C-alpha cells in the first residue's frame, strides 16, 4: 500500500485500539509532535462517526421495511390483530 494508506491504517489502529501495542505507542508518540497527523486523526475520527450514522440510517430503513410488511401485509393478520387489541381503548 502507498504511504498515505499505511498511515491511515496506523491511525485506525490507534483510534480503534486495535493492532499491536508497540505500533499504537509509536503512533501516539508521533501524534504528540506532528500537528498534521493530529488533524488527520481528528477528521478520521469524524469519518468513523459519519460511517456509523450512515449505517444507522441503512439499518433504520431495513427495520421500517420489515415493520411495514408486518403491519400491512394481510398474511400477518394475527400479529396485526394482536397489536390492535392492545391499543383498542
Amino acid at each position, binding site marked *: 500500500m502507498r504511504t498515505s494508506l499505511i498511515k491511515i491504517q496506523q491511525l485506525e489502529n490507534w483510534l480503534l485500539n486495535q493492532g499491536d501495542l508497540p505500533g499504537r505507542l509509536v503512533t501516539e508518540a508521533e501524534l504528540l509532535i506532528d500537528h498534521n497527523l493530529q488533524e488527520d486523526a481528528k*477528521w478520521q475520527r469524524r469519518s468513523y462517526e459519519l460511517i456509523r450514522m450512515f449505517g444507522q440510517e*441503512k439499518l*433504520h430503513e*431495513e*427495520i421500517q421495511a420489515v415493520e411495514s410488511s408486518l403491519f400491512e401485509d394481510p398474511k400477518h393478520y394475527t400479529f396485526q390483530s394482536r397489536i390492535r387489541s*392492545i391499543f383498542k381503548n
Partner: protein
Amino acid sequence: MVIVEELTTRVRKDTIAKWYLEVFPKVATYVQKRGGDLETAKDLFQESIIITYEKLTLEGFRPSVSVEAYLTGIAKNKWLKYCAEQKRSESLDHVDMKDEKEQEPSKHKLLAILRSTGDKCLQILQAFYYEKLPMTQLSQRFGFKSERSATVQKFKCLEKVRDMVKQKSLSHEDFLD
C-alpha cells in the same frame, strides 16, 4: 456473490421480524399501560432494535439474558427516558433554549453530502465498520479479486471520505443548522 449479501441481509431481516413478532407485543403492552400510543411504541422499538444491534455487532456484547429479554429491557428503558424527556420539555417551555453547538457543522448535512455523491465508498465502509462484514464476504459482495484488494480499497475509501469530511467541514458556513 449475490448470495452472500442476500444471506447476510436476509438473516438480519428475519431476526428483526422475529423480534417484532415475539417482543413488540410485550413492549406495546408496556407502553399502552403507561399512556403511550402505537406510534410511540413503534418509534421506541425501532430505536431499541438499533441499540441492541449495535451492542451485539459493534461492541460484541453478549447479554446474560436472552437477546429478546435484553431488547425488551432496552425498550422499557427508552420509554422511561422518553417520559422523563417529555416532563423536562414541559417544564422548560418558557425558556428560550439556544443550541450551544449551532456553530458546529451539522453531521447530518455532512452525511447528506457524502451520500449525494452516490459513492460506492460509503457502502464499502458501512459494510466493514457497521455490518462488521468479514473481508472474505466483503470481497465477494463488492466483486474484489482478493481480500487484499478489498482491504486496500477500504483504506482508499476511508482516505477519500476523510478528505471530503475535512474539506466540507472547513468550509462549514454551508452546514450550520
